[in-house]
């Protein structure tokens, strides 16, 4: 420090030695806890020894925890009774309306809002994981500013003082040199505040940065239907759906809605309904969730897709489109025939990696097929003017920007390295970063301001169809944070800077409490217009995309779990198995088996641990090292990577997990590129997966395909035609040695419709949130100890080059003849009076015999102390992390200690809640009405594939389904008499292609 130091704290401070600098630099370091750099085992040894010593002297006592009663109870709060509030999760795809369960003011679980058009009562994995984001211990807790090489905490007062001066000065310059970059989430209040900012700083510029922003699709729509036009698709009305390089069931604005609509056309309960079943074609280079659900799937590289589309256009309308050169005309002809046959009910959706022209062509075809108004609608939204990140980089490089405010974005991580954004950023003299985390972009910022989570702040958002809804806080901010709106209001120097006032000012004319209650603001959807699509200009190459080439192409997809990396620090997302690859805790470069052979990649499968060959992936002069994962069904010349991993400043969970493919992404954010080079490095990396893969080597393929599908047939796969022809799902009449137990009251049961299930994993996250299921970490997943109570099994069938994939969610079957029950020596697992196979944690001593004897292997054992380990098995004594995470816990569900078995309970706490509610209303709690109890998985299921209810009630939905022709029991021949049964999966193949 300087010689003219006026005040000093100590001699060392005054001398300002390097040693001392290092000392104070780390003194209040935020973010990573230092302890986590210790190996868990070292830590444990240390702690074990000290605890043992401490224990010797002091004896063991339980830690003292105090429970305080309310001295003044908040109005309407009954301790122990949860309350539910509507809110909205903002997203670049459009806000999703949610209902949040809160216990004594503490939000614990997120569900969908039935009245919201983007939710329809369901919530995606990301919507649900937002609760964990709220309580993430790694969130930033105070404003920070640079200090020496690192950062130190500041205070909001300091910021306020700084902001007052700084923005006053900027205002004098009309805001010259001031720029903002937003995440592109549409919010009326944000738009209003942006206008206020412009009033104050007329020269200020607004940019949008979001790797998830559907740029090509918006441009394509505007090409077809004019500026501001957006297309809403309605799968429920469609008879034939073609998905081209898209994943409409998993990503994008309408994923939940599309899933619901798609499943609606697949709920075939009687043979005579089979003719009405919809048919899904997928043409894709990767293997998307939509692809796994397709009746016909054509692996096709991205670069060949425009030709495919042209060929299809020609087949459909030969008088309008010329002949195109495409190889697999058999597929195209059959497809075109099918589309043409179903005019008015045929729909084509195109993915983001296709140029806008391809989107425009698809819109034209959709329109020409007569689907407007039924299978799709055109709405008119205001055109979006914001400039993008490339413009921002240019402006920075031209030194046009001195003060840059980054609002909830992380461009330092989520821009291609070749773009050179980080260097451009250094040109700004004042960088202000507002975000939930002190992430990569916060590192160089002159001010990092902690942003309030949407569950702790006021706001609003627009859904994909324009419907606005309010965001209301569930809890006061956990940390010293402010919402983006509040900070913007401060910058705009508005008088009213409280979030609630800001939102109210946007919506002066509505019944505010009604809008809060409903979770939507009525009548705010964009107007549906009727427009004819412009005939697309079919240029050669479609926006620079060339035709088939010998080069390898690479696809940059958003990760199904971490998206663009924003959820990388959420352990629920990391541990969730990818719906298609079943990989967790990391990403990989997916290659087809043919390509792997060609390149000599030989990833050995050691069952759930993949010893994957590490390859170097280079593109445009940039290279990364990544494990190669052999994936069936990919186009031979396409490799697929997902963005969203390899974070450096995401927090304890996400740091260093996986590979950051932004590093090799082309500078223009192209989601696909040609000419990628892949070379084996001779190294091996272990990948974790929750399910044994089949496409690894010849033996494994044989085993799984022969056993699981030809003989065991877990999904009892049938075609719609077979079903219509009355083909029976075989059922066995098994002898019962004793009379079945008669349940006088409720007798619970569940049916899972495999035709509806898309395998999206929403049920897994719902269960994890509802039932306090800990995350165990990569090491433990590789030891096959993941704890999720419901798993989604994935089976492939058919050719390795182009297999079909089947998803099968497997919760506890609650067998009537439960094999787990007689073997427990201490009777810790028993039947209850309503037929549940109950697990008594207090009684369990952990012999694990029940797990051995469960043919479905749905029992989960707490091999280690997972519950108290900071949501990942890093360090069981890291109580600091748990302090936040335990606030998420559902108080109605026991936290399991190590050494006990656990499993799906059919959400017994919800059953109890419903029974208590019935009793309160003086109704018969032993005969609850149908629908009174909905387990978490069934509640959130986007396709409503899971039905739960009372089997004693002949008219309950579950009874009706169980009596239907598609019902079957998994492993029925074992005579376990499961209560959870399945409806056999139906496919609807086009017989011309079969």
């Amino acid at each position, binding site marked *: 420090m300087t010689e003219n130091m006026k005040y000093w704290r100590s001699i060392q401070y005054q001398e300002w030695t390097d040693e001392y600098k290092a000392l104070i630099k780390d003194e209040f370091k935020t973010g990573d806890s230092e302890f986590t750099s210790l190996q868990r085992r070292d830590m444990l040894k240390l702690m074990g020894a000290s605890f043992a010593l401490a224990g010797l002297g002091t004896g063991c006592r339980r830690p003292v925890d105090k429970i305080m009663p309310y001295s003044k109870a908040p109005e309407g709060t009954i301790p122990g009774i949860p309350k539910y509030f509507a809110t909205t999760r903002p997203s670049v795809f459009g806000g999703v309306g949610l209902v949040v369960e809160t216990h004594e003011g503490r939000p614990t679980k997120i569900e969908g809002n039935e009245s919201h058009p983007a939710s329809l009562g369901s919530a995606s994995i990301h919507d649900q994981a937002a609760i964990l984001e709220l309580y993430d211990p790694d969130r930033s807790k105070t404003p920070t500013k640079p200090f020496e090489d690192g950062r130190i905490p500041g205070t909001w007062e300091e910021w306020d003082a700084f902001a007052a001066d700084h923005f006053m000065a900027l205002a004098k310059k009309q805001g010259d040199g001031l720029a903002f970059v937003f995440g592109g989430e549409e919010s009326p209040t944000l738009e209003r505040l942006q206008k206020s900012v412009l009033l104050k700083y007329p020269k200020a510029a607004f940019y949008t940065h979001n790797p998830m922003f559907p740029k090509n699709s918006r441009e394509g729509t505007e090409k077809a239907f004019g500026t501001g036009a957006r297309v809403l698709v309605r799968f429920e009305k469609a008879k034939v759906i073609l998905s081209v390089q898209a994943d409409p069931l998993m990503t994008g604005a309408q994923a939940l809605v599309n899933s619901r609509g798609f499943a609606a056309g697949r709920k075939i309960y009687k043979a005579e309904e089979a003719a009405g079943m919809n048919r899904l074609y997928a043409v894709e280079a990767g293997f998307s969730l939509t692809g796994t659900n397709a009746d016909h799937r054509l692996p096709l590289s991205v670069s060949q897709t425009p030709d495919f589309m042209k060929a299809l256009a020609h087949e459909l309308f030969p008088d309008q489109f010329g002949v195109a050169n495409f190889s697999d005309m058999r597929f195209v002809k059959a497809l075109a025939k099918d589309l043409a046959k179903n005019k008015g009910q045929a729909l084509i959706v195109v993915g983001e990696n296709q140029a806008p022209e391809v989107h425009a062509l698809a819109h034209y075809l959709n329109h020409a097929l007569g689907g407007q108004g039924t299978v799709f609608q055109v709405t008119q939204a205001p055109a979006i003017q914001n400039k993008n990140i490339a413009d921002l980089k240019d402006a920075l490089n031209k030194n046009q920007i001195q003060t840059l405010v980054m609002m909830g974005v992380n461009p330092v991580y989520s821009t291609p390295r070749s773009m050179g954004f980080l260097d451009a950023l250094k040109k700004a003299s004042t960088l202000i970063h507002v975000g939930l985390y002190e992430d990569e972009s916060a590192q160089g910022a002159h001010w990092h301001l902690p942003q309030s989570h949407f569950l702790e702040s006021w706001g609003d958002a627009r859904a994909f169809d324009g419907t606005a809804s309010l965001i209301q806080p569930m809890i006061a901010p956990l940390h010293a944070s402010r919402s983006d709106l509040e900070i913007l209001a401060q910058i705009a120097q508005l008088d009213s800077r409280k979030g609630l006032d800001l939102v109210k000012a946007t919506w002066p004319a509505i019944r505010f409490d009604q809008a809060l209650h409903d979770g939507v603001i009525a009548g705010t959807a964009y107007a549906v217009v009727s427009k004819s699509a412009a005939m697309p200009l079919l240029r050669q190459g479609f926006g620079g995309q060339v035709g088939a080439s010998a080069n390898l192409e690479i696809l940059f997809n958003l990760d199904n779990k971490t998206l663009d990396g924003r959820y990388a620090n959420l352990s629920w997302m990391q541990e969730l198995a990818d719906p298609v690859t079943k990989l967790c805790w990391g990403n990989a470069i997916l290659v087809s088996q043919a390509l792997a052979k060609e390149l000599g990649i030989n990833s050995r499968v050691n069952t759930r641990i993949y010893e994957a060959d590490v390859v170097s992936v280079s593109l445009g002069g940039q290279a990364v090292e990544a494990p190669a994962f052999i994936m069936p069904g990919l186009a031979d010349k396409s490799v697929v990577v997902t963005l969203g991993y390899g974070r450096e400043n995401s927090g304890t969970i996400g740091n260093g997990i996986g590979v950051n493919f932004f590093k090799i992404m082309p500078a223009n954010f192209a989601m696909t590129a040609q000419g990628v080079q892949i070379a084996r490095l001779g190294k091996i990396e272990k990948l974790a997966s929750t399910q044994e893969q089949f496409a690894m080597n010849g033996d494994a393929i044989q085993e799984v395909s022969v056993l699981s599908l030809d003989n065991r047939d877990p999904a009892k796969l049938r075609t719609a035609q077979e079903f219509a022809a009355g083909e029976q799902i075989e059922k066995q009449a098994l002898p019962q040695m004793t009379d079945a137990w008669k349940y006088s009251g409720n007798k619970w049961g569940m049916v899972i419709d495999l035709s509806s299930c898309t395998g999206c994993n929403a049920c897994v996250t719902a269960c994890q949130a509802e039932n306090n299921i800990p995350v165990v970490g990569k090491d433990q997943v590789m030891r096959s100890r993941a704890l999720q109570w419901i798993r989604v099994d994935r089976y492939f069938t058919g050719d390795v080059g182009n297999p079909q994939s089947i998803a099968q969610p497997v919760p506890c079957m609650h067998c009537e003849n439960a094999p787990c029950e007689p073997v427990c020596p201490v009777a810790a697992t028993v039947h209850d009076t309503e037929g549940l196979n109950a697990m008594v944690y207090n009684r369990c001593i952990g012999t694990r*015999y029940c797990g051995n004897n469960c043919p479905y292997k749905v029992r989960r054992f707490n091999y280690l102390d997972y519950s108290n380990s900071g949501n990942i098995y890093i360090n069981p004594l890291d109580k600091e992390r748990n302090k936040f995470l335990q606030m998420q816990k559902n108080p109605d569900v026991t936290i399991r200690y190590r050494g006990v078995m656990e499993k799906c309970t059919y959400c017994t706490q919800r059953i109890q809640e419903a029974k208590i509610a019935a009793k309160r209303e003086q109704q018969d709690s032993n005969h609850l009405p149908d629908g009174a109890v909905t387990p978490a998985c069934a509640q959130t299921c986007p396709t409503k594939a899971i039905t739960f209810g009372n089997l004693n009630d002949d008219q309950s939905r579950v009874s009706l389904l169980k009596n239907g022709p598609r019902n079957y029991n998994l492993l029925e021949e074992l005579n376990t008499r499961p209560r959870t049964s399945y409806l056999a999966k139906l496919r609807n193949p086009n017989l011309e292609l079969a």
Partner: protein
Amino acid sequence: MHRGDLVLDEDLVKREDLIRGGLGYHDITEKVCKMAETPFLETHKGWLVGFALAASTLTMFVLAIGYLIWEGIGIWGNTSPTFWAWDIVNFVFWVGIGHAGTLISAILFLFRQKWRTSINRYAEAMTIFAVICALIFPGIHVGRIWVVYFFFPIPNQMDMWPNFRSPLLWDLFAVGTYFTVSLLFWYVGLVPDLATLRDRVKNKAAKLLYGLFSLGWRGSMRHWVHYERAYLLLAALSTPLVLSVHSVVSFDFATAQLPGWHTTIFPPYFVAGAIFSGFAMVQTLMLPARLWLGLKDIVTIKHIENMNKIILVTGSMVGYAYGIEFFMAWYSGNEYESFTFINRAFGPYAWAYWTMVTCNVITPQLFWFKKLRTSITVSFILSIFVNIGMWFERFVIIVTSLNRDFLPSSWHYFTPRIWEPIFLIGSFGLFFTFFLLFVRYLPVIAMAEIKGVIANGDDHHA
């Protein structure tokens, strides 16, 4: 008395003597008591080295158990389909070993197989220690050892019985009963010999202890009458236990519905296997001991050959059982069962299966040759093979059945971690610590009994 005088002794003329070297009553007493009577400071160096090794291994075992309880059984490699692995493999392995002792003592006693007297004490001690090792594993393998008392049918505030339908509970009773009866049987047999030691030792403390445990034995006719009666009764009581205990252990598997476990052949197959492994372990321990303790004349080549014959018979039975399992897997037409057995022999654990078959079925067949079964070296090597093979048999049954069951989605290859071998080796530490203490301080040969079978004619020069 001349041995030609009595018709009863006629077979003795033809047969080889059970005890050789012309040992008389006194020689036997001297030979057997020598080790126990050696003053502490003159303890044999070899014994000290062995004991130090065993005791250190035991210490490691105790520490490992401490860590296991502190951290949780996740320190092992057990997974989600393979909920049981080395923990239960070790348990069954040790219980199996614990079979030979009582079989030799009780069944051979009832069948008047007099050759048993040279080895029964040794074998019984081995049984007791093996069962102790066995009992440790189910104890420590549970998730919550601090509530393991839920297992026992003791009155409690929860008003809960254990679940009598669970084979694990039957197991507890079966092994517990077996242990108790074996211990009593062993101890009753020890009483006259303890009295001998009491009468001979010089050390006061030793005299007191031997005196205490010899229960005032004076060798009077009345004592002998009661002793013989008690011994006979205990032998009769133990006999069914020899057969029941491993049958019940096999129920742990046979009553489960898991393919590879759910078979009716298990009880006889397990008992045969247990006797097989027990005799092999007796051989493994006896062959070096008779050398080091100078008991060649008491434990003769005839004993060794007899035991090898039993190993050959039981080994063949075990091999037959392996074959029948395959036959039934095919004959039953049950695809899960067929898959399990194909998977055993040709799946990822084929190496374990073929290790088992080699050690248990193929190598014991060498005992058809008299030359080999009367060779000390061959006997010792083969006994080690059988020990290894029988450990792998339990591994194959438990792990290969569990790691791939009905739904392929649950399959997971089990890999042990560093702790599994530590626990297995640690249990050997416990076993050998007990065993070395036994060899050092107790009569390793049933002196009183053996004196009844020596050819006390001309040769005897008391």
